[in-house]
């Protein structure tokens, strides 16, 4: 049920969303956890790499570094993070990896709401 076989000629450029203005971001909250269901990319990640969290379908939180999905936030922490996001929805999850993937693919990650 696509719109059709081919996109029209000269399709527009895509752009990310401009950030919205958050008047009161509230206190910084952080969670430290070991990755669930680590991917092959997790084995190559180094400690201190910038990480982000993406929330898929309002349920699962996926951890990314440099565009690669590393794995998921464990369910218990994901529930806590989502609970906090429900109160302060406009915040984003950013943080770092705290361990090397070579030691264990279940990399230690810290994600904060900011």
């Amino acid at each position: 049920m696509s719109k059709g076989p081919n996109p029209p000629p000269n399709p527009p450029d895509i752009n990310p969303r401009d950030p919205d203005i958050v008047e009161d971001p509230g206190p910084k909250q952080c969670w430290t956890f070991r990755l669930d269901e680590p991917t092959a990319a997790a084995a190559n990640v180094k400690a201190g790499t910038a990480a982000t969290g993406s929330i898929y379908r309002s349920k699962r939180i996926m951890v990314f570094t440099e565009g690669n999905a590393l794995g998921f936030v464990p369910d218990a922490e994901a529930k806590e993070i989502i609970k906090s996001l429900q109160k302060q929805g406009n915040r984003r999850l950013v943080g770092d990896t705290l361990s090397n993937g070579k030691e264990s693919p279940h990399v230690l990650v810290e994600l904060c709401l900011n």
Partner: protein
Amino acid sequence: MSNTQSIEVQAVLPLACPPCPYRILGRCDGPIDNKTYLMQGKSMVGCLGAKRRGFYFGDTHEKFVPIPSSSHQHRITLPAFIPSIRDGLRVTWPEILPSSLFAVSLGKIINQSGNLAFETIDHLRKQFNLPKLAKIALIGTSKDYKLEALWKISDREKIWERIAHFGFEFVTSSTYSVWDKHPRADQIRNQDRNFQTHDILANLGAPTIPFFFPVAESDYRAVFEWLQDRSDIDKVAVLAQFYKSPYRFAQFLKNMRAIQNAAQRQLEFLVVGVGQKYKIEAIRREFKASIICSKPFQAALAGRIIKRNLEEEGPNLLLPRKDLVIPNIEQYVRCCERIRQQRVSAA
């Protein structure tokens, strides 16, 4: 093996490999073909660059959007036919309107930079010369460049909030384009953006109908899973506009059946962009459906009158074009109601 073949064989691997977010989420079984897989450009996410793919995945999913407790669809009653209004003709509407509800496309209410061109529904009614009592629904269709512009400023300009509080009878989700010959990453991202705009608008209290554009089998599974989390939804929208030929239309019906099956509940379809009688009959034979099209306006713009069988006649040189809109709408309303009644009688 030639160099090209080597590239193709190697190129298949990244999307199918474990770090691809769509694959991990069960939304992707890998590339559909090498051509779409290798497509790159500023107009797409593409499948080749992990960084770009991850960046746009983040852009789409970094904000938490709760699953709405309701899509408020109990407040929506779909008539057999909803005329899509267009500008270009200054229609003088009678006291008793030819339709209980009018539809306007998202593209008509946003400007080139994606911002709303109207601030209130009264302002919009004035643009179309509609009386105060006219009810208007917003259909999330638009040219891609406007949808992309809207996406960029949507948070900053609080576009979804303003749409939700505009006073529309109901709204649909957006219709970010899903094309057959597009990279899989873009197909999935645009489906996700359409899902997400439904949730945003429903969370803001607007009665909302989601648009579905599943392509691959995993997309139908995703529709099913998405609907499972939103048990109150029984109205969904589909776009028929690009299914013109009989062969394509047969495919459209097949796709509707697949969505109905995936839903595992009785759905009422809002079918946008279908104007021919045999197509409306074919849809109504199988599905509970409401039809939206702008043909009554388009025909009037060309000076043509719609006949009982919904064929066009003319040009009619005796009547001003603006005076053809109302009889054209009336033909559609009567015809769609007749078809609906026939189905009810048959049932």
